[in-house]
C-alpha cells in the first residue's frame, strides 16, 4: 500500500540530485542538492551574523543577543575544554558548530521533494572530522615537534606493558575521527529514517479500513519524534564542537 507513489521510501530523502552540472577538466564538480543546501546554510549564517551584529548597540537587540549568546556559548566551551590558549581555535570551533547546527536544523524543515539533511551523509561528516584531526596532528607536531607523539605513551605504567598499551593508544587515537564522523552521520540518518517510517504508518493505517482508528497513534509519535529530532540536531552540533575542543586540547597541551 505504501510502496506505490513516490516519497514513501524512507531512504529516498537522502538521495543526491544533480541540480547544475559543472565539469572542471574532467572533475565532476556539479552543484547537487547537498551543495545547494550548504550554500543556503552559509548564506543564512553569514546573513544572520552580518545583520544581527551590524547595529553593535550596547544594549543588544533580540537578534544581536542571539548571536552574542551563540558566541559566548562557543567561547565558554572552548575555554573550558582547551583553556584560554585554545582561543586561537575559536574561529574554527565556532564555524564548525554553527555550520553543523544550521545544516542539522535546515534538514528538519519539511519541504516536499526538496528537504535534504547534508549531515546525514558520511562523506560530509568524515570530511569535517578528518579536517579536525589533521589540524590536531599538524598543530601538535608544529607546537611540540616529535614530542607530540608522547600522547601515545602512557605515563605511570611499567615498561613491560608498553608494547601492549602503545598500540591501544594509537588505535584509540585513530578511532577518534571515525567515532566523531559516524556519531553525527548515524544520528541524523537514523532519526530521519525513523521519522519517515512513523509518518508513513499514518497513511498506511488511514487506508486500512477499520484500522484507521489507530492512525492518531503514529501521528502523535511523529510529533514527539520531531521534537526529539530538533533536540538531537542541536545536541549533535554541540557534541561535535565539544569533541573538537577535547581533541584540540591534546594538540595544545601535548602529552601529560
Amino acid at each position, binding site marked *: 500500500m505504501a510502496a506505490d507513489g513516490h516519497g514513501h521510501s524512507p531512504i529516498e530523502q537522502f538521495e543526491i540530485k544533480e541540480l547544475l552540472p559543472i565539469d572542471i577538466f574532467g572533475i565532476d564538480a556539479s552543484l547537487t542538492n547537498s551543495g545547494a543546501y550548504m550554500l543556503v546554510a552559509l548564506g543564512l549564517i553569514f546573513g544572520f551574523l552580518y545583520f544581527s551584529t551590524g547595529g553593535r548597540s550596547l544594549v543588544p537587540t533580540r537578534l544581536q543577543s542571539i548571536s552574542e549568546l551563540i558566541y559566548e556559548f562557543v567561547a*565558554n*566551551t572552548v*575555554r*573550558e*575544554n582547551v*583553556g584560554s590558549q585554545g582561543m586561537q581555535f575559536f574561529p574554527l570551533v565556532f564555524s564548525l558548530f554553527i555550520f553543523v547546527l544550521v545544516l542539522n536544523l535546515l534538514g528538519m524543515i519539511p519541504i516536499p521533494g526538496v528537504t535534504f539533511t547534508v549531515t546525514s551523509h558520511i562523506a560530509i561528516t568524515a570530511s569535517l572530522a578528518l579536517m579536525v584531526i589533521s589540524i590536531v596532528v599538524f598543530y601538535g607536531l608544529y607546537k611540540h615537534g616529535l614530542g607530540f607523539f608522547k*600522547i601515545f605513551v*602512557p*605515563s*605511570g605504567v611499567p615498561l613491560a606493558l608498553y608494547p*601492549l598499551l602503545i*598500540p*591501544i*593508544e594509537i*588505535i*584509540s587515537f*585513530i*578511532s*577518534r575521527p*571515525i*567515532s566523531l564522523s*559516524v*556519531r553525527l552521520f*548515524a*544520528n541524523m540518518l537514523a532519526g530521519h529514517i525513523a521519522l519517515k517510517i512513523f509518518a508513513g504508518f499514518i497513511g498506511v493505517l488511514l487506508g486500512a479500513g477499520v484500522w484507521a482508528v489507530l492512525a492518531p497513534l503514529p501521528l502523535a509519535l511523529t510529533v514527539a519524534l520531531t521534537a526529539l529530532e530538533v*533536540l*538531537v540536531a542541536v*545536541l*549533535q552540533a*554541540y*557534541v561535535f564542537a*565539544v*569533541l573538537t575542543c*577535547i581533541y584540540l586540547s591534546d594538540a595544545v*597541551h601535548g602529552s*601529560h
Partner: protein
Amino acid sequence: MSPADEGSDRNEGQISPEERAEFKRRSAEIGRRLDAARPESGKSKSAKGSQGKASNELLGRALRLSTELIGGIVVGAGIGWWLDTYLMPTVFGVKTWPLMFIVFFLLGSAAGMLNVVRSGMKMKTGPSDPTKGKPVPDDEDGVI
C-alpha cells in the same frame, strides 16, 4: 522620591548637603540590596540552569559513549584485517590470517573501552563546569 524630583535635581546641578547625604544613604542601601539579591538569584539561576543543562548533557554523553566503544573496535578490527589480507601476504609474504585480525580486534576492543573510560572520567570531573575548570588538567595527569 519620585522621578520628577530626580529630574529637577539633575537639571539644577546643585545638590544641598542633606540631599547629598540622602543620595549616599540611598546608594548604600541599593548596594546592600543588590548584594543581598545577587548571590541568591545567581544561585537559583545556576541551579536551575545546571539542572536543565544536566539532562541535555546526559543525553549528549549517552550518545557520545556508545560510538566511542564501536569506534575502537571497528578501527582495531580494520587494522587487523588490513594487515592480514594486504600487508602480511603481499609485502612480507606471510600468511597470517586470522591471527592479526584476532589480535587487533582484541586491542581495538581495549582501545574502545579506554575511550569510554577516558571520556567517562572527563565527564566526571566535569569540564563543562567553570568552577571546576582548574582541576581537570591535574586529573588528566593521573589518568592518562
